[in-house]
């Protein structure tokens, strides 16, 4: 009979093999789907790769899409390490972008070297405070942070919708609801052809890794993640650590929002996140919350997004079909987590017992 057994430890090599198998299975399943739409699957997949890496322009696009994914995944990972399920990155990005935009629109004439750091602070504060709200309620009243952070996303989104249709509406846009563009000083400069956000992401990866492994707070976060009771017993101030960590977690997401608003949007809009806040949950999780892997997984995801956007145009595949493709890959990869944690064995009734 078939039995499901929990795996104790699994070698990272085996894990990689399982993930790889999942991706292959996903592509296989998706090819049936692509065939149904009347396109040759292999050609579509090759085009997807070509769309993500084929020219230096496309490669740059992929890198630009990687930046917010990395920073947001770092922010989410911090909270996840504590087993604080921060689903609110989307809202924290939005509120970070809001903070940065407030600075940019209030002081458009400041020189760049003053304005950009201030916008950065605005982003950190906006995202940080937005994450602090559910953290406070969790620390004080044991509320469920998953629902709380999720709901705050919608509030943040509606807040921007309100600003866009009301107080911040651009009077020069003849009634069309958009927020005015930033002044040129409020736009992040480029370094080696890509906006400087990549350098910020790189620095944050290093800092996060150091923070978790080398500082006392980082250690405390890991202990709380293992067991809150143990942490209490060890004399760690759990409530305070939750508040501090969530502030940092949200602040990182907020900074991603600032970067997107400044370098990409050059203004604030309801479309600012492009779903990064949700995608980053998946990338953080698949990266096992480890900084270097976050870089790799974020890059692969960005390539997938860029690639499917390319095939949509190249093969005229409807938007929703390109999303189904993405969804299938996700489904299989996430589903394979099951086989990493458990395994199915076949055992005859007589033999029974004994680990294989």
């Amino acid at each position, binding site marked *: 009979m078939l039995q499901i057994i929990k795996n104790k430890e699994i070698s990272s090599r*085996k894990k990689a*093999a*399982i993930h*790889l*198998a999942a991706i*292959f*299975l996903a*592509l*296989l399943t998706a*090819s049936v789907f692509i065939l149904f739409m009347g396109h*040759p*699957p*292999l*050609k579509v997949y*090759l*085009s997807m790769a*070509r769309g993500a890496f084929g*020219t230096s*322009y*496309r490669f740059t*696009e992929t890198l630009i899409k990687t930046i917010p994914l990395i920073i947001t995944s770092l922010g989410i990972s911090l909270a996840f390490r504590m087993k604080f399920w921060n689903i609110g990155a989307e809202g924290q990005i939005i509120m970070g972008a809001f903070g940065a935009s407030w600075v940019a629109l209030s002081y458009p004439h400041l020189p760049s070297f003053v304005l950009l750091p201030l916008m950065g602070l605005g982003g950190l504060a906006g995202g940080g405070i937005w994450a602090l709200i559910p953290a406070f309620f969790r620390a004080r009243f044991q509320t469920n942070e998953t629902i709380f952070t999720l709901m705050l996303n919608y509030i943040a989104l509606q807040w921007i919708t309100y600003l866009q*249709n*009301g*107080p911040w*509406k*651009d*009077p020069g846009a*003849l*009634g*069309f*609801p*958009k927020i005015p*563009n930033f002044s040129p000083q409020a736009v992040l400069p480029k370094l080696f052809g890509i906006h400087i956000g990549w350098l910020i992401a790189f620095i944050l990866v290093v800092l996060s890794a150091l923070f978790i492994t080398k500082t006392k707070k980082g250690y405390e976060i890991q202990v709380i993640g293992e067991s809150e009771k143990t942490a209490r017993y060890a004399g760690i101030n759990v409530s305070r650590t939750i508040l501090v960590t969530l502030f940092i977690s949200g602040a990182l997401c907020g900074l991603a929002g600032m970067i997107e608003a400044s370098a*990409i*949007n*050059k203004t604030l*809009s*309801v*479309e*600012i996140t*492009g779903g990064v806040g949700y995608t980053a949950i998946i990338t953080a999780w698949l990266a096992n919350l480890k900084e270097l892997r976050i870089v790799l997984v974020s890059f692969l995801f960005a390539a997938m997004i860029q690639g499917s*956007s*390319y095939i*949509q*145009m*190249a093969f*005229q595949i*409807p*938007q*929703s079909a390109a999303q189904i493709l993405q969804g299938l890959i996700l489904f299989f990869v996430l589903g394979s987590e099951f086989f990493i944690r458990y395994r199915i064995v076949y055992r005859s009734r007589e033999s029974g017992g004994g680990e294989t």
Partner: protein
Amino acid sequence: MRKIGFVLSLSLLLLALLAGCSGTDSVSKDMVAGFIYIGPPGDHGWTYAQDKGRLMVEKELGVRTIYKESVPEGPEVKDVIRNMIDQGAKIIFAGSFGYMDYVEEVSKEYPDIIFLHCSGYKMTENMGTYFGRMYQARYLSGLVAGLKTKTGKIGYVAAFEIPEVIRGINAFALGVRDVNPDAKVYVRWTHTWYDPGKETEAAKALLDEKCDVIAQHQDTAGPQQAAEARGAFSIGYNSDMYSIAPRAYMTAPIWNWGPYFIDQIKKAMDGTWTSGSYWGGLEDGIVDLAPLTPNAPAEAREIVEEMREKIISGEFHVFEGPLKDQSGKIRLEKGHVMSDEMMLSIDWFVSNVVGRIETGK
């Protein structure tokens, strides 16, 4: 180890399955035209009409076209444009008002590419604007609605408080007024171009207020379905929506983009293209009124045809003074015809419209 073997065999299987399917992207023809859509081509409205134009381009010119659907009016459109250029697009039609600033920004980066932005007012050396005098067709549809209404209340589901939409509502209301001086047009804003749910809800709210004819400036047929479900009547938009609401739909102001697209692409291929602003009307056929269905009042046919001819010949102007706004103030003196500048920046309603404009000024 067995798992790795499993993976390997799987990948072999995959390759075997897909062998013979490979090939390369073909970018053989020189001219590639890109189209950016706000919704999906299946919306049966705005994007559907544009996609019909694109297909006409493919058929008549044999030019390769690429499109991207459901592109939001945000920075993503810059990405889309750059990707299209990367895929060889030489001329790009950006089909929604909110793309304007982004198209303008990218147009400066690519001086060799031709950009055409729909319904905006910003132009550069290589970015032109195009639109149609839809208000003429809307006026005609207003005649139909005005003759049909029993309650004297006509509902109008509208997207954004921008001149294009306001102009359309005014033209429609003037059509209503000319056949039914007592009827009023009730406006409800959705603040979205494409949201079937919201559009339907807005139409239902208007029906609740005893409106018995529903018109729309939206991209889907949601308001048509709402009218159909309540046994009311409706005026569509963008394309013929008879099949969607067979008992409610009377007619629709419609777009016919194909000839314009073809003209611009030909000019781009000849090298005779210049930046500019195109605003054609009924006389060009870029806008028109869809055939009246049996749901429309019988007496409408003759009046519509008569006014249509008069507009084309230039004998009649939709916006001609005296025109009063909602407060009774004269906005256009008797004997004056509204200038294009005034039409393109209009921010007030004519007197028989019930609704508010919040422009945030």
